[in-house]
């Protein structure tokens, strides 16, 4: 299974909330690989991929945040026009829906990484792999 764990945090849309999350992770020595915020009026959901998910989850939970872990896919995107299309088209022809996605680039990696939450993670893993795309494992994310 090539799924990786993403941490999601429920946060009120108020000054200082993001800073509190960041401080908790900093104090725990957890490094953030990728992050996105989805906001909906009074509240939002902070989603992130970190180097040590268990440690990050525990630190946030113990600090009283509403946290959950979600299975997502990390797919390498080729740094050429059509890179994103290749991935999304593969999912689309297989009738797999993308709930949300966000991307990040790392200094070491030559390629960008797309984080995807889909409605059928097993089938998505299968069709993406069969189409020749590379899915990052937990260890890879940890060691970027």
């Amino acid at each position: 299974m090539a799924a990786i764990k993403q941490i999601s945090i429920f946060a009120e849309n108020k000054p200082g909330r993001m800073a509190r999350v960041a401080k908790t992770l900093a104090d725990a020595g957890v490094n953030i690989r990728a992050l996105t915020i989805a906001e909906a009026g009074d509240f939002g959901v902070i989603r992130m991929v970190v180097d040590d998910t268990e440690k990050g989850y525990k630190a946030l939970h113990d600090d009283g945040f509403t946290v959950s872990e979600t299975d997502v896919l990390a797919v390498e995107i080729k740094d050429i026009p059509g890179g994103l299309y290749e991935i999304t088209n593969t999912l689309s022809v297989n009738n797999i829906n993308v709930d949300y996605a966000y991307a990040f680039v790392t200094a070491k990696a030559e390629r960008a990484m797309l984080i995807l939450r889909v409605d059928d993670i097993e089938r998505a893993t299968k069709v993406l792999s069969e189409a020749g795309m590379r899915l990052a494992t937990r260890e890879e994310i940890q060691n970027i």
Partner: protein
Amino acid sequence: MFEYWNPHIERMPIEDLHKMQEERLRSIVRYVHDHSSFYRQRFREAGVQPDEIKRLSDVTKLPFTSKRDLRNTYPTGMFCLPENWVVRYHVSSGTTGKPTVVGYTQGDVNMWTESLARALTSIGMGRGDVIQVSYGYGLFTGGLGLHYGAERIGATVLPTSAGNTERQIELMQDLGSSAIACTPSYFLYINEVAQKMGMSIRDDTKLKAGIFGAEPWSEGTRRRIEDSTGIKAYDIYGTSEMSGPLFTECHLQNGIHIWADLFLIEVIDPKTGERVEDGERGELVVTSLDKWAFPLIRYRIGDITILNNEPCECGRTHPRIMRILGRTDDMIIVRGINVFPSQVESVLMKIPEIGDNYQIIVDRKGPLDVMTVKVEVTESTFSDKIADLMSLSKAVSMQLKSVLNITAEVELVEPGAIPRSEGKAQRVIDKRKV
């Protein structure tokens, strides 16, 4: 296991009870008239003489009294005996105005204790039980009231008073508390803290019963408490004017037994002052039948409830009041519609995705009242999808609308964002300028 403390009185045939009430009513009316200039004046204004009160139904000829009278005669103008008869005072906090003072003779304290001894026995308490009294001790009636009642039935009292929650939990464990008396909101907080300490009320303590009151609470909250902690949650009722906490449900949990030999109760329409039919909601009015330093004559308590005169299956013949639905003075009027916080609570506690705490905020935007209900998102049901959260808040809003007939905005907040209370929870914040 579920016995009677005073079987002769508790199971007395209704006709005999009524006869007893009638005799006691006649003598208390005569007594207050002879002992208090306040009551004499009230009777004169109402054009009623003590000897006109012969039958129980004559009680409606007597004038109402209320908290306003108690404030106007501050501190002891409604007392019927000189201060040197008084063995104890209690004083209300005065959060809704001037504080009010109540006083007791030794006999009044004994009556209070007798009432609670019957109540505690009816929920299966007795010798061998350890009752942790987490109501505040001091000027508030809750702590000392329960304390004396629990001692009378031979139970062991653990007088923790309110506050210092971690210590409460440690002592509960170390001394094997089998029951706790506190506000339901404080117990939910204790449960929350226990979980944070890595322990469970169900598995790590001997707690089997909770005696919860001093604030209105709902059936939904009862179910939550019972399901999450495995204890039985009993409703307790009483106000400082009546003595303090006095009455509970029996083990059948179907209405609070009001001892008719001690108090005569009526339920009236708060607007007209007329009695409502049994089974209809209205304001509770109380006449004390065995209380001498500070007797009550048709005192308007301000609590909204429903009267049930049917004898209970437990064998007790005394009338019951169903859950306190709220107070006439904590009812909020939003866009002309009456809303009780307990109605909001009954809706919220049925929705598993939200936490045990809530707060109602009423504000005015332009000419319009806006009601916002803050609820906490719980981690066990937190979905990382925005759409799920949006539909949760929409579902809460729709269910509130179907019960209250008013649109409420629902705000999802982080766990712990709503202030916790060790006593009475502040459920309503009214920001409207009057």
